[in-house]
Protein backbone atom coordinates (compact mmCIF):
# COMPACT_ATOMS: atom_id res chain seq x y z
CA UNK A 1 0.00 0.00 0.00
CA UNK A 2 1.38 3.37 -0.92
CA UNK A 3 1.56 6.45 1.23
CA UNK A 4 -0.58 8.75 -0.85
CA UNK A 5 -3.37 9.12 1.64
CA UNK A 6 -3.95 11.44 4.56
CA UNK A 7 -2.80 9.39 7.54
CA UNK A 8 0.63 7.85 7.04
CA UNK A 9 2.59 5.26 8.95
CA UNK A 10 6.00 5.38 7.34
CA UNK A 11 7.39 2.53 9.41
CA UNK A 12 4.72 0.13 8.25
CA UNK A 13 4.13 1.43 4.73
CA UNK A 14 0.51 2.16 5.50
CA UNK A 15 -1.78 5.06 4.72
CA UNK A 16 -5.51 5.70 4.84
CA UNK A 17 -7.98 8.54 4.54
CA UNK A 18 -10.27 8.18 7.53
CA UNK A 19 -9.71 8.48 11.24
CA UNK A 20 -11.60 5.24 11.83
CA UNK A 21 -9.22 3.32 9.58
CA UNK A 22 -6.27 5.05 11.19
CA UNK A 23 -7.29 4.23 14.72
CA UNK A 24 -7.98 0.64 13.67
CA UNK A 25 -4.46 0.49 12.24
CA UNK A 26 -3.00 1.81 15.48
CA UNK A 27 -4.58 -1.16 17.20
CA UNK A 28 -2.66 -3.58 15.03
CA UNK A 29 0.87 -2.21 15.14
CA UNK A 30 3.25 -1.46 17.97
CA UNK A 31 4.08 2.22 17.89
CA UNK A 32 5.89 4.61 20.17
CA UNK A 33 3.90 7.61 21.32
CA UNK A 34 5.64 10.67 22.72
CA UNK A 35 4.22 13.82 24.15
CA UNK A 36 2.88 15.69 27.11
CA UNK A 37 -0.30 14.70 28.84
CA UNK A 38 -2.29 14.96 32.03
CA UNK A 39 -2.22 11.85 34.20
CA UNK A 40 -5.67 10.30 33.86
CA UNK A 41 -5.80 9.72 37.62
CA UNK A 42 -4.34 12.77 39.32
CA UNK A 43 -4.22 15.29 36.50
CA UNK A 44 -0.55 16.14 36.85
CA UNK A 45 1.13 16.90 33.55
CA UNK A 46 3.85 14.50 32.54
CA UNK A 47 6.17 14.02 29.61
CA UNK A 48 5.79 10.50 28.33
CA UNK A 49 7.03 7.92 25.90
CA UNK A 50 4.74 4.93 25.58
CA UNK A 51 5.11 1.96 23.28
CA UNK A 52 2.34 -0.46 22.46
CA UNK A 53 -0.80 -1.11 20.48
CA UNK A 54 -3.78 1.14 21.09
CA UNK A 55 -7.03 -0.61 21.81
CA UNK A 56 -10.70 0.25 21.52
CA UNK A 57 -10.23 2.58 18.58
CA UNK A 58 -8.25 5.13 20.55
CA UNK A 59 -5.90 7.52 18.80
CA UNK A 60 -3.60 8.13 21.75
CA UNK A 61 -2.69 6.38 24.99
CA UNK A 62 -4.08 7.22 28.39
CA UNK A 63 -1.14 8.19 30.56
CA UNK A 64 -0.50 7.48 34.22
CA UNK A 65 2.18 9.38 36.09
CA UNK A 66 4.85 7.41 37.96
CA UNK A 67 3.28 8.15 41.34
CA UNK A 68 -0.15 6.86 40.32
CA UNK A 69 1.39 3.91 38.50
CA UNK A 70 3.17 2.89 41.69
CA UNK A 71 0.01 2.87 43.77
Amino acid sequence: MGLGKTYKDFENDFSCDTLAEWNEHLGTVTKTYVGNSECVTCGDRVEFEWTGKLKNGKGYPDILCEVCKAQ
Partner: protein
Amino acid sequence: MSCDEHTAIDESASVEVINRKTVNDNSIIHGYVTIVKNQGMADEQIICQDKPNLLTDDGRDYAIAQFYTNTGAGGVGMNFIALTSDSTGADAGDSTLPSEITTGGLERALATTITHSTGTNSTVLAKTFTSTGTHTAVQMSGTFNQLSVGGVIGHESVFTSVSLASSDTLTVTWTLTLG
Protein backbone atom coordinates in the same frame (compact mmCIF):
# COMPACT_ATOMS: atom_id res chain seq x y z
CA MET B 1 -15.35 17.19 1.42
CA SER B 2 -17.90 15.97 3.85
CA CYS B 3 -18.08 14.56 7.30
CA ASP B 4 -20.45 12.77 9.56
CA GLU B 5 -21.80 15.35 11.92
CA HIS B 6 -24.28 15.46 14.67
CA THR B 7 -24.51 11.69 14.74
CA ALA B 8 -26.01 11.04 18.10
CA ILE B 9 -25.81 7.77 19.94
CA ASP B 10 -29.56 8.00 20.30
CA GLU B 11 -30.88 6.46 17.09
CA SER B 12 -33.87 8.76 17.12
CA ALA B 13 -31.68 11.80 16.73
CA SER B 14 -31.34 13.47 13.38
CA VAL B 15 -28.26 13.28 11.21
CA GLU B 16 -27.17 16.53 9.69
CA VAL B 17 -24.35 17.26 7.30
CA ILE B 18 -23.21 20.78 6.71
CA ASN B 19 -20.60 21.68 4.14
CA ARG B 20 -18.71 24.77 5.02
CA LYS B 21 -15.20 25.91 4.32
CA THR B 22 -12.83 22.99 3.95
CA VAL B 23 -9.11 22.50 4.22
CA ASN B 24 -6.91 24.37 1.78
CA ASP B 25 -6.19 22.01 -1.07
CA ASN B 26 -2.56 23.06 -1.18
CA SER B 27 -2.02 22.69 2.54
CA ILE B 28 0.56 20.13 3.59
CA ILE B 29 -0.55 20.39 7.22
CA HIS B 30 -4.03 19.01 7.54
CA GLY B 31 -6.21 19.07 10.59
CA TYR B 32 -9.20 16.95 11.45
CA VAL B 33 -11.43 17.70 14.36
CA THR B 34 -13.87 15.61 16.35
CA ILE B 35 -16.28 17.17 18.85
CA VAL B 36 -18.25 15.12 21.36
CA LYS B 37 -20.71 16.49 23.91
CA ASN B 38 -20.84 14.66 27.24
CA GLN B 39 -18.48 11.91 26.14
CA GLY B 40 -18.98 8.69 28.04
CA MET B 41 -22.30 9.83 29.48
CA ALA B 42 -25.75 8.46 28.75
CA ASP B 43 -26.54 11.48 26.60
CA GLU B 44 -23.30 11.44 24.65
CA GLN B 45 -23.60 13.17 21.31
CA ILE B 46 -21.07 13.21 18.48
CA ILE B 47 -21.25 16.73 17.13
CA CYS B 48 -18.63 16.37 14.43
CA GLN B 49 -16.36 13.49 13.50
CA ASP B 50 -13.07 13.58 11.60
CA LYS B 51 -13.90 16.83 9.86
CA PRO B 52 -11.29 18.55 7.68
CA ASN B 53 -10.45 22.10 8.68
CA LEU B 54 -8.18 24.77 7.40
CA LEU B 55 -4.65 25.88 8.17
CA THR B 56 -4.65 29.62 8.58
CA ASP B 57 -2.26 31.88 6.71
CA ASP B 58 -0.68 32.88 10.02
CA GLY B 59 -0.42 29.23 10.99
CA ARG B 60 1.43 28.41 7.80
CA ASP B 61 3.85 31.28 8.39
CA TYR B 62 4.42 30.12 11.96
CA ALA B 63 5.12 26.57 10.86
CA ILE B 64 7.53 27.77 8.22
CA ALA B 65 9.32 29.87 10.82
CA GLN B 66 9.74 26.80 13.02
CA PHE B 67 11.12 24.76 10.15
CA TYR B 68 13.18 27.18 8.17
CA THR B 69 13.58 30.76 9.21
CA ASN B 70 13.97 30.91 12.99
CA THR B 71 17.52 31.56 14.04
CA GLY B 72 16.89 31.19 17.77
CA ALA B 73 15.06 28.68 19.87
CA GLY B 74 11.79 27.41 18.47
CA GLY B 75 8.37 28.68 19.46
CA VAL B 76 5.69 26.94 21.46
CA GLY B 77 3.60 24.47 19.50
CA MET B 78 0.03 25.28 18.54
CA ASN B 79 -1.33 23.07 21.26
CA PHE B 80 -3.85 25.35 22.97
CA ILE B 81 -7.49 24.85 22.02
CA ALA B 82 -10.07 27.63 21.89
CA LEU B 83 -13.80 27.78 21.15
CA THR B 84 -16.30 30.35 19.93
CA SER B 85 -19.97 30.80 19.18
CA ASP B 86 -19.15 33.04 16.24
CA SER B 87 -21.03 32.05 13.10
CA THR B 88 -18.94 33.71 10.42
CA GLY B 89 -17.11 30.50 9.57
CA ALA B 90 -13.48 29.53 9.38
CA ASP B 91 -11.29 31.71 7.21
CA ALA B 92 -7.66 31.18 6.32
CA GLY B 93 -7.20 34.92 6.69
CA ASP B 94 -8.27 34.95 10.33
CA SER B 95 -5.61 36.07 12.78
CA THR B 96 -7.89 35.53 15.78
CA LEU B 97 -10.77 33.25 16.63
CA PRO B 98 -13.68 35.70 16.32
CA SER B 99 -15.48 36.34 19.61
CA GLU B 100 -13.44 33.69 21.36
CA ILE B 101 -15.07 32.37 24.53
CA THR B 102 -13.09 33.47 27.56
CA THR B 103 -15.31 32.42 30.47
CA GLY B 104 -17.61 29.72 31.74
CA GLY B 105 -15.25 26.79 31.48
CA LEU B 106 -14.78 27.01 27.73
CA GLU B 107 -11.88 29.41 27.79
CA ARG B 108 -8.73 28.56 25.86
CA ALA B 109 -6.78 25.72 27.40
CA LEU B 110 -3.70 23.63 26.88
CA ALA B 111 -4.62 20.31 25.32
CA THR B 112 -4.96 17.60 27.92
CA THR B 113 -2.96 15.31 25.70
CA ILE B 114 -0.40 16.28 23.11
CA THR B 115 0.65 13.05 21.45
CA HIS B 116 2.70 12.19 18.40
CA SER B 117 3.18 8.62 17.24
CA THR B 118 6.71 8.30 15.95
CA GLY B 119 7.17 7.12 12.41
CA THR B 120 3.83 8.58 11.37
CA ASN B 121 2.58 11.98 10.24
CA SER B 122 -0.07 12.10 12.95
CA THR B 123 -0.36 14.18 16.12
CA VAL B 124 -3.33 14.35 18.46
CA LEU B 125 -4.38 17.30 20.60
CA ALA B 126 -7.37 16.68 22.85
CA LYS B 127 -9.12 18.59 25.59
CA THR B 128 -12.35 18.02 27.48
CA PHE B 129 -13.93 21.30 28.50
CA THR B 130 -16.44 21.34 31.34
CA SER B 131 -18.98 24.11 31.12
CA THR B 132 -19.51 26.16 34.25
CA GLY B 133 -22.30 28.22 32.73
CA THR B 134 -24.66 28.33 29.80
CA HIS B 135 -23.22 28.50 26.31
CA THR B 136 -25.38 28.82 23.22
CA ALA B 137 -24.42 27.73 19.70
CA VAL B 138 -20.76 26.93 20.22
CA GLN B 139 -19.65 26.17 16.67
CA MET B 140 -16.00 26.81 15.92
CA SER B 141 -12.64 25.84 17.37
CA GLY B 142 -9.09 26.98 16.81
CA THR B 143 -5.60 26.10 17.93
CA PHE B 144 -3.11 28.62 19.25
CA ASN B 145 0.47 28.83 20.46
CA GLN B 146 -0.25 30.44 23.83
CA LEU B 147 -2.72 30.21 26.68
CA SER B 148 -3.76 33.82 26.95
CA VAL B 149 -5.94 35.43 24.31
CA GLY B 150 -3.79 36.47 21.38
CA GLY B 151 -0.89 34.60 19.86
CA VAL B 152 -0.89 32.84 16.52
CA ILE B 153 -3.89 30.84 15.35
CA GLY B 154 -2.88 27.66 13.57
CA HIS B 155 -6.03 25.80 12.57
CA GLU B 156 -9.72 26.59 12.52
CA SER B 157 -12.77 24.42 12.07
CA VAL B 158 -16.50 24.91 12.26
CA PHE B 159 -18.83 22.24 13.53
CA THR B 160 -22.55 21.79 14.04
CA SER B 161 -23.49 24.26 16.74
CA VAL B 162 -24.01 22.88 20.19
CA SER B 163 -25.38 24.45 23.34
CA LEU B 164 -24.10 23.57 26.78
CA ALA B 165 -25.57 23.84 30.23
CA SER B 166 -23.47 23.95 33.36
CA SER B 167 -21.60 20.68 33.93
CA ASP B 168 -21.93 19.59 30.31
CA THR B 169 -18.64 18.59 28.77
CA LEU B 170 -17.29 19.17 25.29
CA THR B 171 -14.43 16.97 24.16
CA VAL B 172 -12.43 18.48 21.32
CA THR B 173 -9.95 16.24 19.51
CA TRP B 174 -7.69 17.53 16.78
CA THR B 175 -5.84 14.94 14.75
CA LEU B 176 -3.20 16.77 12.77
CA THR B 177 -1.21 15.35 9.88
CA LEU B 178 1.97 16.91 8.61
CA GLY B 179 3.49 15.62 5.41
